[in-house]
């Protein structure tokens, strides 16, 4: 699933530009020294990382992606408050648990984004994607994928699975059209 680069020395021109800009913004300067350093980084980092890249689906609905990002940011703020309350409350009232969420997504980028949002939102940390990548032979597609999550305070397993699927997975499916 390697991607053939168009230019050999600049495999991802947009990413190089992004790295260049981010370096200048981080240093808050446009002096000659920083520009030289930024150019070097913008060339070396994509060259070093391009062998690891695999083909990923594109964001087909940018408007929806932006709305989903806002929703996730809002959820992160509420998640912080909720987890703070749970942490400060009594320990023995908490009922932790592992939950397996069946996934409809198949490609790795949407699954990564879903796992990260689950980690950042109320009381859940994603732990593992089943089946193990190691147990599959190259190119084989598993029948069903699961996301194992650890829940800090598990009350209703089915309701939690439904929330994750409707609130976070459905928009991702629509954004990437897969």
């Amino acid at each position, binding site marked *: 699933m390697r991607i053939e680069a168009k230019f050999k020395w600049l495999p991802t021109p947009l990413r190089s530009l992004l790295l260049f800009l981010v370096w200048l913004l981080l*240093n808050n300067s446009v002096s000659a020294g920083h520009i030289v350093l930024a150019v070097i980084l913008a060339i070396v980092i994509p060259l070093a990382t391009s062998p690891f890249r695999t083909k990923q689906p594109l964001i087909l609905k940018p408007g929806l992606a932006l709305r989903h990002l806002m929703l996730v940011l809002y959820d992160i703020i509420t998640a*912080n408050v909720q*987890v703070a309350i749970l*942490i400060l409350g009594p320990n023995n009232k908490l009922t932790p*648990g592992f939950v397996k969420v069946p996934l409809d997504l198949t490609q790795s980028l949407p699954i990564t984004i879903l796992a990260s949002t689950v980690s950042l939102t109320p009381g859940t940390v994603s732990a593992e994607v089943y089946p193990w990548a190691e147990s599959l032979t190259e190119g084989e597609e598993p029948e069903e994928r699961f996301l194992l999550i*650890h829940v800090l305070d598990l009350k209703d397993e089915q309701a939690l699975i439904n929330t994750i699927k409707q609130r976070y997975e459905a928009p991702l499916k629509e954004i990437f059209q897969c």
Partner: protein
Amino acid sequence: MTEWIISILLLIGGSFVLVGSIGLVKMPDFYMRLHGPTKATTLGMASLLTAAMVFFSTTQAGFSVKEILISLFLLLTAPVSGYMMIKSAIHHKLESIERTQGKDNIEDDV
């Protein structure tokens, strides 16, 4: 006025980071400990960095954006590091406390 905004942001950020650290000490097992640092600290750090941004933008010439970039990097890396830690904990078959539900959902290693 800006001093007030900066102070309030610093207080909010500091208390969230503190709560995250309290969770790290107080929780009974590794899996529950992980919840504090992955969440409570992201908002805490974001508030602290926003305070820094307001401070540097008002006291120095020019607008400072590197704090936004730092919060973005934190937001991207916090779930990944949490995932790596819980993954290795599962591989090492670390004990979770007795009342943990759904332990049979963990599959064995290949």
